């Protein structure tokens, strides 16, 4: 994942993926950061997607349709074998996609690089001994640029 660098005429959002560099592989952590980093473009899309994907559907007051069922399914033991991962991911990703499309309609004229085109599960690893699941997701904007997000998820395999 790389940092967005062109802010001319753009609106910015708080950057919550700390440690982002322009090129290369780096350890990324989530948080508000110390210096108030901001981002724009595809980075916003990746953040939005990650937040919605990791938010439990129904957990946001007054907004019952925001979020996805992925973590709920994980906690309920819905992922028992590796084959469960793509199915649950697809369901949750579709929920996120619908929400982001509605948000884009609400927001009016968003630039194409701030609108989601697709989220593809590139790879995943389920380590049963450590109750650990890792997702590698490619987020692509309508403008064609993309970012890859790694989502580590602790899983209690029952």
């Amino acid at each position, binding site marked *: 994942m790389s940092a967005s660098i062109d802010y001319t005429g*753009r*609106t910015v*959002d708080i950057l919550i993926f700390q440690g982002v560099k322009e090129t290369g592989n780096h350890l990324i952590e989530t948080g508000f950061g110390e210096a108030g980093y901001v981002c724009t473009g595809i980075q*916003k899309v990746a*953040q*939005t997607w990650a*937040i*919605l994907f990791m938010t439990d559907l129904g957990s946001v007051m007054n907004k019952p349709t925001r979020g996805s069922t992925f973590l709920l399914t994980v906690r309920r033991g819905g992922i028992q074998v590796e084959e469960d991962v793509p199915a649950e991911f697809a369901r949750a990703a579709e929920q996120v996609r619908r929400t982001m499309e509605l948000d884009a309609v609400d*927001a009016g004229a968003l630039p194409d690089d701030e609108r989601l085109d697709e989220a593809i599960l590139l790879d995943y690893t389920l380590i049963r001994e450590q109750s650990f699941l890792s997702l590698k997701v490619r987020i692509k904007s309508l403008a064609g640029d993309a970012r890859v997000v790694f989502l580590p998820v602790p899983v209690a395999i029952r």
Partner: protein
Amino acid sequence: MATTSDLSFSDVSETLIDQAEEYLVNFLQEQFPSRDFSKGRVTRELVINIAAELHAINREDIDRLLKSFSPVVIAQDPAAADPDIVDAVYGNYGVTRYDGNKAYGSVAIIISDLITTAVPDTTIFTSNGLAYTVAQAYVGVTTADAVLTSSERLIEERPDGTYVFTVPVIAADVGEAYRAKRGARFTASPAVTGTIDIEAASDFEGGTDAETNAELVERTQQGIAPKVFSGRAQVSSLFQDQYPQLVNLSQVGLGDAEMLRDRDNIFEMSTGGKSDLYVQTADVPEEVVVVKECTYLGLNQWQATIGRDDAPGFYLVNAVVRHNTTSFVGSLAVVSETRGLDLTMETDWVHDLTGMVQGAYSRYQTAVVKFTDPETPAATLVGAKANYDFYILRLPSIKTLHDLTINRPRRPQNGDYLVRAAVPALAYVSLEIQYRSVTTLPSEASIAQAIASRINALGFTIGRLPLALVIDAAQGALESGGTYTFTPINMYAEIYPPDTTPYGKITISDVNQLTVPDLPERGVSQRTTVFYLPVSAIDVKLKPMSVKAI
């Protein structure tokens, strides 16, 4: 007094949160045009959304304060004001909310055998889903010698061969709903050994709801007047202050046709200086049981005197039964009832009044009651004594208010204010409500309660009981569609004027409106008379209506 907010997120509407979110977004967007606050962005999802929830709850808090911070805004919409803040505001004027009180009375525990029977202090008596408790443990004992304290209750034989003892109980909570009527069935938990039945020995007393904001506002507005015997506003203020449960008050004085006491002179001219204060101290009169020692007159006839302290200002003797009779219907036949006045001086002064028209339903009223007991043993000698239970209908606290008028420091030097229970117009209503089969219906009892609450609040205001009010109250308790009150409905009322003896009661009946006759010379008019409509006097029938499917 509320010092911190007790609001939770559930108290805040979704609309208010949405408005708060929109407000914050617009506000921040103006301040920071380069920031992206659209949905899905981190700032919106993780900052603004949460801030909006907190903003909304603060807004709700402020709104409540704005609706409650002064007597003026409270009076504009009392229902919207926060009760705790209202209490604090009116506390500044020395006005305290009336918290309501708990109903209390006695339950008669009917047992099969004459054996010592315990009622633990953990016993819960229940009637119609409402709980009543005992203040202490009681034990029913078999001999009078065993009654040493108030916790020992003498078991007495009933005419049917079973046994009974009574136990005082008090409602678990405040409220009118807890006023059990005589004969109301109770259950006990844990069960009392050997019990055949448990019922209210007499009508329960007390049991008033806590004052609402609207009622507090109304009382306070009256209370701004000085609390003294003077003009009508001042006397009303005094009575409301001394007896917050007062439902209605009507003051008759100089120039009013109903004022008879100031015309006791050879010219029958009003001389002023006197006032009759007709009070309604409860929604409906209550029945109390008074045990009287009666004297045998011969030929199965007995006589007792109801003293002025037995049930001050009482309306009617509803029933006379042999002592400890419960579960009865009707009464021993009352041969005659002669009302009188006991004007014995209690302080340094007594009211100036003559005759029952001037003194009926006041604290001075007495009655001599003669009745027949056909089961009097043949060997009973004339002059023999026996106890009988008198079930007497009366308003509570007539003496409490009367005492204000004879208290030397408080009473006016130049006025004679006589407290009297409102002349009773005991009403009865029978109505039929038709409904479609798909309609959700409340119980007949809750419809009757809605009607009773509406009518009993009328007081002296209109002197009428209109059909429209009955229908409106009934329909208010029902779903708006699919029901209607079938008209005409049957209504009648029995008015007991101060001179009921010897002239008799007045019965009024009409399908559209019951109207209090204007008979000031008999003490009956809109200014003196109140319609009482207890729930037990309302017959509600629910009937499915025949309709075709569409």
